[in-house]
């Protein structure tokens, strides 16, 4: 009886088979590797170009060399295009209300005086927030300009106390630069896309081609069939995540401020939740085409409502209810929290628990349905 036993888990042959097929399916393989790169570049650069050249009106009440250099640095970010000068707050309002300007830079009279006295100098950027992307652009541009100016002012005085530093920074938080904001989101969206779409299609393909029936008449258990289908995509998910993190760092200088280990651990809950949805989709469809359609149907609200593209705060309440029903919403908070803010589990435990809840519920429901549809 060497090497033959019915009690042995049949997971290993299932996994080996999946990896053989994955390697052969060049197109899917290329997509799994290619999608992160293409999407990252598309989203990363597209959103950058979109936010350029906001028509901006300037109200410079300081009329000093410092205020002028701040304005010119802001213009150099290319996020702002100076459309005109205003002489009063009322004129600024006119410019924006009429749509001639989407943003305004307001520099108060005491700007230079404060700098000279080594006090915190304030400048204000007003944005037409009807378009959240525009406001993100304005904030990004302001942040960039502020940090550039701050450094320029700081350098010659580096031996002395910092002039414009502490009080200004929260205002001009560079972490709000849009590409930095969007890249962590791409990790979440891509994981959703791959795990949901590829998983549901992979299972639907077996049903469609008739290989599933042949599989089910063998002694392999439903659990092994499911794990054999799902586990390879956990690996794929982590590979994608890693490649986006690296590309985001190289191309867009996205910071990784928190613990990468924590991020990988917490990602598991999100990955499992998505595999659950993928499995669920596969039980609802008969063909690969249907699997794709249904997956896209699930993905659309994820992209639009999770806070990936538009901030939750900018959404109407009803849309927010949907947002809070999406695992991606919480995962984005975790991603941005760890990558951009560098926070730990003490801050993110709430989101983590919700994700674990989602994952458990989805897996329980989909496994139940899957077992039913097998026989």
């Amino acid at each position: 009886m060497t090497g033959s036993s019915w009690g042995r888990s049949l997971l290993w042959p299932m996994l080996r088979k999946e990896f053989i097929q994955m390697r052969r399916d060049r197109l899917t393989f290329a997509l799994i590797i290619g999608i992160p790169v293409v999407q990252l570049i598309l989203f990363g650069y597209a959103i950058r170009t979109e936010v350029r050249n906001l028509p901006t009106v300037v109200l410079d009440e300081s009329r000093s060399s410092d205020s002028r250099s701040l304005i010119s640095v802001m213009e150099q970010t290319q996020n702002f295009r100076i459309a005109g000068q205003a002489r009063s707050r009322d004129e600024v309002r006119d410019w924006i209300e009429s749509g001639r300007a989407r943003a305004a830079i307001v520099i108060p009279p005491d700007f230079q005086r404060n700098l000279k006295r080594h006090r915190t100098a304030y400048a204000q950027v007003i944005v037409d927030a009807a378009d959240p992307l525009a406001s993100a652009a304005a904030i990004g541009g302001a942040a960039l300009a502020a940090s550039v100016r701050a450094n320029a002012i700081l350098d010659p005085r580096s031996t002395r106390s910092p002039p414009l530093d502490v009080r200004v920074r929260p205002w001009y938080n560079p972490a709000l630069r849009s590409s930095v904001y969007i890249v962590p989101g791409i990790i979440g969206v891509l994981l959703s896309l791959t795990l949901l779409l590829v998983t549901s299609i992979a299972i639907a393909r077996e049903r469609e081609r008739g290989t599933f029936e042949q599989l089910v008449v063998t002694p392999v258990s439903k659990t092994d069939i499911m794990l054999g289908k799902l586990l390879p995509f956990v690996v794929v998910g982590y590979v994608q995540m890693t490649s986006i993190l690296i590309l985001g760092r190289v191309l867009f200088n996205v910071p990784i401020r928190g613990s990468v280990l924590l991020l990988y651990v917490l990602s598991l809950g999100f990955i499992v939740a998505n595999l659950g949805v993928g499995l669920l989709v596969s039980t609802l469809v008969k063909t690969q085409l249907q699997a794709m359609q249904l997956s896209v149907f699930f993905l659309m609200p994820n992209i639009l409502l999770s806070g990936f593209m538009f901030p939750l705060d900018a959404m109407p309440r009803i849309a927010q209810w949907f947002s809070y029903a999406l695992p991606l919403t919480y995962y984005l908070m975790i991603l941005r929290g760890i990558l951009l803010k560098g926070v730990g589990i003490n801050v993110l435990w709430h989101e983590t628990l919700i994700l674990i809840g989602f994952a458990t519920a989805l897996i329980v429901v989909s496994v139940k349905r899957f077992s039913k549809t097998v026989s």
Partner: protein
Amino acid sequence: MTETPVGDRPPAQPESPSAAVHTEKLTKVFGSITAVDALTFDIRRGEVFGMLGPNGSGKTTTIRMLCGLLEPTSGAATVAGFDVKTQGEDIRRNIGYMSQRFGMYDDMTVFENLDFYSSLYGLGGDKKRKRMDELLDTLGLRPRSGQLVGTLSGGLKQRISLACAIAHHPAILFLDEPTAGVDPAARRRFWDTVYELAKSGTTILVTTHYMDEAARCERIAFLSRGHLIAIGTSEEVTKHFGQPTIEDVFIELQRRDEGVVA
């Protein structure tokens, strides 16, 4: 296949009645359609048993219930002595199944498919290698072992399906229209293999539309609209219907079926 050792089967054989397959008022209802209606029959151990009937007569549904792919609506059945309702896993270890649709992985080679299914049937190590060698040689698949299954001809596809279905020396082999769309030479060769399996003690249930194949079965069952119309040797069945050949029986049956529809 005479060299394949019969005594090498998995240990799960129960002491059972002499029937390899036994059904008792086996019934399957899909919505308003009764696909299989109170089917009662036995298949003896080591028998080559043919199941005939027009399309939609319930042959495939019956096989799917016996293999544990479908749950019967009512009635009972045992396969290799195991109850289809409660002992599905024991049944799966003791049967081989070739479905009407080609069920191998197109994007895997002959060798990879055989390796995969042998593993799923619990073979491993030297034992698996030996059995795979044996199957590749007896079924003439050795020269194609590195070829992707999707690029094989119909006859070869059928042979790799058979190889995967018998990797574990099943006690009972279910063949659902195994030779559909296969050329005559490949059909003959396939049947030679089936006979050798039967000779070594494997019980075989086969559905077919080819009358020459039906004539080669020891006993045949005629199904029409989910009912068992006749069962016995081909002489008994032709006599029962007062027709000269099985083909005449078949055509007569089909006429009756259509008469009901019209």
